């Protein structure tokens, strides 16, 4: 089952050279993953490489269609903590 890059991709190129299966290619508007080539990095790396470097939460879906980097996972601030974190930052 393949990972999938969706339209929130900002075309930063970071994932493309990391893919051990060379499954990532530049599509029209953003990067895409060739579902026939993607191995989920099984046998190559512990974590899927595209997911591990992608800077955009939600831009890559796992094989079950769920965001591989869900909201708050890359900022380090869980959604429910957002208001408190914002208040703390604005007090600086």
């Amino acid at each position, binding site marked *: 089952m393949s990972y999938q890059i969706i339209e*929130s991709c*900002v*075309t*930063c*190129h*970071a994932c*493309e*050279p*990391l893919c051990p299966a060379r499954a990532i290619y530049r599509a029209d508007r953003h990067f895409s993953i060739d579902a026939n080539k993607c191995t989920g990095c099984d046998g190559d*790396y*512990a*974590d899927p*490489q595209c997911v*591990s*470097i992608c*800077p*955009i*939460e*939600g*831009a890559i879906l796992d094989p079950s269609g769920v965001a591989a980097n869900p*909201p708050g996972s*890359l*900022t*380090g601030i869980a959604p429910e903590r957002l208001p408190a*974190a*914002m208040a703390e*930052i*604005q*007090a*600086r």
Partner: protein
Amino acid sequence: MALQLIGQATDDGAAGCTVSGCGGSSAQLSHLSAQIREKVHNHPCYSEDAHHHYARMHVAVAPACNIQCHYCNRKYDCANESRPGVVSELLTPDQAVRKVLAVAAAIPQMSVLGIAGPGDPLANPERTFETFRRLSEKAPDIKLCVSTNGLTLPDHVEALCRLNIDHVTITINCVDADIGAMIYPWVFWNNRRVKGRKGAAILIEQQQRGLAMLSARGVLVKVNSVMIPGVNDQHLEEVSRVVKAKGAFLHNVMPLIAEAEHGTFYGVMGQRGPTHTELQRLQDRCAGDMNMMRHCRQCRADAVGMLGEERGDEFCMEKVEQMEIDYTAAMQQRAEYHAAIEANREAQKHHSGERFVAVSAIKRSQRETRPVLMAVASSGGGVINQHFGHARAFLVYEASPTDVRFIGHRKVDLYCSGGEHCGDAESTLARIIRALDGCEAVLCSRIGYEPWEQLEAAGIQPNGEHAMEPIESAVAAVYDEMVKNGLAEHRTPSERLRIGA
């Protein structure tokens, strides 16, 4: 929320020694060897004096990044913003080489080519080194430099040295992982994403190792730090001490740029940037330990032209493809142009020196006076040659009884030239006046009637009497005049309040 990183700050630096560049702190530069001075004397990003005379460009060949900084938005494509990490078009190494040769033929002041993003150049080693390798063959007179977050720097020191890259900028915002965790949410390390304090600790260790390795090889390293109030503002003095001990020759403390519309984590969360005064105070405190750079313009990762100037539009790939260029003739022309610049700088040095003595004389003959900040409109060449209304940034100088020193620059249309539709109701003039807060005079070649009146009303005296004169001597002359008219006396507390209001 999408977060990201733009990478690096750009390039800039200061060490070329002139009256203003050193000012009261000329002793700080005395430890620089003649060899280092030679390396920086025509680098606009490393030498404050050189930035009046020489141009630089960045080519955006490096999109990928291996860390996330909270002040960076990885969606880097914006034509209206001018700040690190933003570019209009991404280039292949082949396109980059063609663009550099075209720019270097059209702008003979060009002395430096840097790669600064929009991601991290060393996270794109093939693209970055391919560009450098081909340029060093085709335009050997152009200095090459690179700016990095440092994460993979130790792995690339050999390659950098092989290609004669003798200027490297590392963005180091902290040497303490707890502070790092507030700036860097993750790094990509050994094929895994490492979050929080652990990731920050890896980054810091790699940066420090890379810095020490480059210094040991004799490569000039400038350290850029982003000043983030409430996060690392109290910590950057220590950073200054540490990087100096490890061999950095210049420290550039830059203000955080964080606006909600930039889409960065800090921007969206409402993290504030420092005020001009906070920045200047920190730079002054760090200056006790380190050569400080104050003329950084925080330019785009595809900037073209003199610092503070954006000529990228003239050299988009579509136009570059049409240009016919005689590379040999262009290189010859650059050599002649640079020789003329050097002759001119030499002449100005003597001119400034004379004025300088005159200012010092004031101190002996008169009562004690206070330092005064003045803004200057200059489009380059080290002289006052810009119409007030054309200035997009002002140089700020501090005149005191003992010297004239460069303090920094103030951008007018803060990092965005989007114009009316950006929704900022404040008029351009009001914005300029706010940007010049703390200055008591503004020197320009000409100025219109309306801005003259409003500046005067705001306590900033416009002055168009020194058009085409070297900046330092003009600032000294205006200070001289202020002293004679009793305008530079120490203020009483009540006067200070009134002026501050």
